[in-house]
């Protein structure tokens, strides 16, 4: 009986002592947790920004004109010039 009593008392005291400690721990925990989460958030944010930057770089490099466009454009210009010269030559021939 006494043993049971002692055990009960001990457990009671243990819990009485433990609860404030646990409460204390949980009171301390949020701040640390928040800072930890914030650090994590910042890290993720940085990674996201990096990914965005890479995406923008890829996009701009995709939009950059290639050799086909450049030479195609130059060809169009000279072709139009040729048509203009042809028209003027015909006019001169008629005259």
């Amino acid at each position, binding site marked *: 009986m006494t043993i049971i009593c002692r055990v009960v008392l001990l457990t009671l005291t243990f819990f009485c002592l433990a609860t404030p400690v646990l409460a204390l721990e949980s009171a301390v925990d949020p701040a640390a947790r928040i800072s930890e989460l914030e650090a994590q958030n910042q890290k993720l944010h940085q990674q996201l920004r990096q990914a965005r930057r890479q995406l923008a770089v890829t996009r701009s490099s995709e*939009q950059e*004109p290639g050799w086909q*466009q*450049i030479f*195609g*454009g*130059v060809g*169009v*210009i*000279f072709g*139009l*010039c040729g048509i*203009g*010269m042809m028209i*003027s*030559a015909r*006019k*001169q021939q008629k005259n």
Partner: protein
Amino acid sequence: MHISDGVLPTTIALGCYAASAAICTWSVKRTRSEDLPKVAVLTAAFFVASLVHLPFGPTSVHLLIPGLVGALLGPSAFLAIALGLVLQCLLFQFGGLTALGANLLMMGLPALLAGLVFYRFKGTGRKQRIWVGALCGGGATIFSALLLAVLLASGGEDFYGVAKLALGAHIPVVLIEAGVSAMVVSFLLKVKPEILDIPFVMKEKP
């Protein structure tokens, strides 16, 4: 220095289209058929020049050369720039199709002005021609930055803010343009000086 789609109000965009179409017609009429190869070469140069990116500090700038095109082509410059800009717009997605008229005015008017200035003040001396060429190259870029500010101001932006921004961003371009124009003019003076004697006539020749 390009105006994108949807920045300008519709009326302004349409007005710019009409104005640039009118100037383009005038420019086509002023173009002599014997100048056509020169026009084509300078159009191609203008078309490609914007792809030449020069690293400058943290960013890179690209050439615009409206001043050089104007100085070498005179009245035909607007035609050359119109053709070059249409192709840039279609192939490189520089600026939008709806803003093409405004972009044309922005590049073409400085070119015409540069042509007029070069024709009036080029004189006969070699040094003077080089200096006037540099002035045309730099001045045309400044003028087009100002025109950009005017056009954006019509879309509701603050004129002085945009003007300051555009001019500030283009200070290196202005310097490089002036240098490139001076170099091209001095080179042409050496190898083919008659190419610089383009008449800037307002009237139709008989």
